[in-house]
């Protein structure tokens, strides 16, 4: 009889492994969301000079648990004029791709659900499926605000997919593999891809903010103008599933950033204790989760036209240029990455300097036009 890991028959081990992995991922998503909601409230409170949750448990730590139990206990309400099946299915359509993303994320050497050959493509694919659920949620709610939210989301997500994928392709060009494990292995020690491709990181991070519907790109669920957009008609656990999906997506995007640009699980002493990689990976990922929250507490929401022009007029040309330059430099200097790194840092500098300049010129032109129109 063949013996698999832990002396268990492989016939039993394969389904057992699936069950363990599923439980781990569900636990990870749920606990991660609880932790992130607490962090989000505390961090926003600190930035806005408030105290945040304080009374439930020590430092208000149990507040999110109380909220979760409240949400679980709430009545499942569906307005009569909503479209029954679409309305009920939408949260699952948003939630399940996010859950499936965790399969390819390399948490530590050897700790990965599946080392897919096309891991990165798989992640972007799943990310693009979210939009379907949001559009359906907006439409099925039979509510004009929800519909606008859903359609905004469709426009936003499809547009920002382009710079997102272009940024990822730049990294793939340099690393030469689409497998998440391969990308993690390619950055030993301090040779992180961030040092080579900072611009791709910045563009991906901006696009990732938009893909996860996080502020300043949270137009689909804008509370103040769309009464929460596609979420308006949802309540209780269905509403919570959308938020679980959002926080899960934030974790996935942060994990992608960690894996692609910041050396995944690489860190001190990983060679000695491979399990330590989980710690480094989690710390790095949560650092970016914190940046997400910091940005949310700092920046005001964009208007839809600003959102679109940022994508089509700034990010897509920039990422295309970056891709072209990187590809050419890699062909000319196949042995060293130094020219690519120099070009990328220069482009990043140009981006940071030029953006406010063009913005100001555009504003001046706009004011001029308004003045002549008024005169």
């Amino acid at each position, binding site marked *: 009889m063949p013996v698999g890991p832990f002396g268990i028959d492989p016939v039993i081990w394969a389904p057992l492994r699936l069950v363990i992995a599923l439980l781990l991922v569900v636990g990870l998503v749920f606990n991660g969301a609880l932790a992130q909601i607490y962090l989000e409230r505390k961090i926003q409170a600190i930035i806005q000079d408030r105290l945040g949750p304080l009374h439930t448990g020590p430092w208000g730590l149990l507040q999110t648990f109380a909220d979760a139990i409240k949400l679980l206990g709430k009545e499942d309400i569906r307005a009569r004029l909503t*479209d029954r099946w*679409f309305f009920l299915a939408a949260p699952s359509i948003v939630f399940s791709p996010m859950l499936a993303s965790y399969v390819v994320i390399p948490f530590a050497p050897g700790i990965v659900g599946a080392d*897919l*050959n*096309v891991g990165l*493509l*798989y992640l*972007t*694919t799943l990310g*693009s*499926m979210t*939009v*379907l659920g949001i*559009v*359906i949620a907006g*439409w099925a709610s039979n509510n004009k605000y929800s*519909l606008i939210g859903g*359609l905004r989301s*469709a426009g936003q997500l*499809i547009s920002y*997919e382009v710079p997102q994928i272009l940024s990822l392709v730049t990294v793939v060009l340099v690393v030469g593999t*689409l497998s998440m494990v391969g990308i993690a292995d390619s950055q030993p020690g301090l040779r992180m891809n961030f040092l080579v491709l900072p611009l791709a990181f910045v563009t991906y991070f901006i696009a990732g903010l938009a893909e996860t519907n996080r502020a300043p790109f949270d137009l689909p669920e804008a509370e103040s103008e769309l009464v929460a957009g596609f979420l308006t008609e949802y309540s209780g656990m269905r509403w919570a599933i959308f938020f679980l999906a959002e926080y899960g997506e934030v974790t996935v995007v942060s994990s992608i950033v960690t894996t692609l640009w910041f050396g995944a699980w690489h860190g001190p002493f990983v060679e000695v204790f491979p399990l330590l990689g989980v710690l480094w990976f989690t710390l790095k990922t949560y650092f970016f989760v914190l940046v997400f929250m910091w940005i949310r507490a700092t920046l005001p929401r964009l208007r839809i036209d600003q959102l679109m022009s940022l994508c089509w007029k700034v990010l897509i040309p920039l990422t295309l240029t970056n891709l072209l330059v990187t590809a050419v430099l890699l062909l000319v200097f196949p042995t060293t990455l130094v020219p690519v790194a120099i070009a990328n840092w220069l482009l990043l500098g140009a981006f940071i300097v030029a953006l406010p300049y063009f913005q100001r010129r555009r504003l001046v032109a706009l004011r001029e036009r308004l003045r002549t129109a008024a005169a």
Partner: protein
Amino acid sequence: MGFLEGAFFAVLTIGIIGAGAGVVLANRITTSALLMAFTFLNVAGMFLLLGAETVAMFQVLIYVGAITVLILYGVMFTPQVPRPYGLFFQTQKFWAALFVVPIAIFVALVAFAFRDTAAVGAKGGDLLPLATSVFRDFAFPFEVASVLLLAAMVGAIVLVKRDDE
């Protein structure tokens, strides 16, 4: 083909044919659009079974993530006039059969012609063959197709552009 592959193949086939029929027969156009997305997902599953992971991913990325959403977009903006449903589809049985039967026979013949051909290759090995064929062996037709699409896009923008100012 092992038992699992056979089982998956059966499930996916039922999914494709069932959802495909649903797209045509469903009463509401949004249901059709969603079923179409389901069909695409099943087709992606077929590609996975054949070991063509990359093609499967692109199938989902482009058809489920983008095209279905755009179709839903269009459907939602189209006013839905309540109309007797049978008006359009069910009076054209003869013409439908006239076109469908020859096409079905042709497709079946083509499919059976490939019966003894091996699948794309080892598991996950389709990325390299795909890339070489698109960017090396068929680079010229590929570029021509992209120029054509670009022209179509520019044309579409020009057509719908409002002439204010």
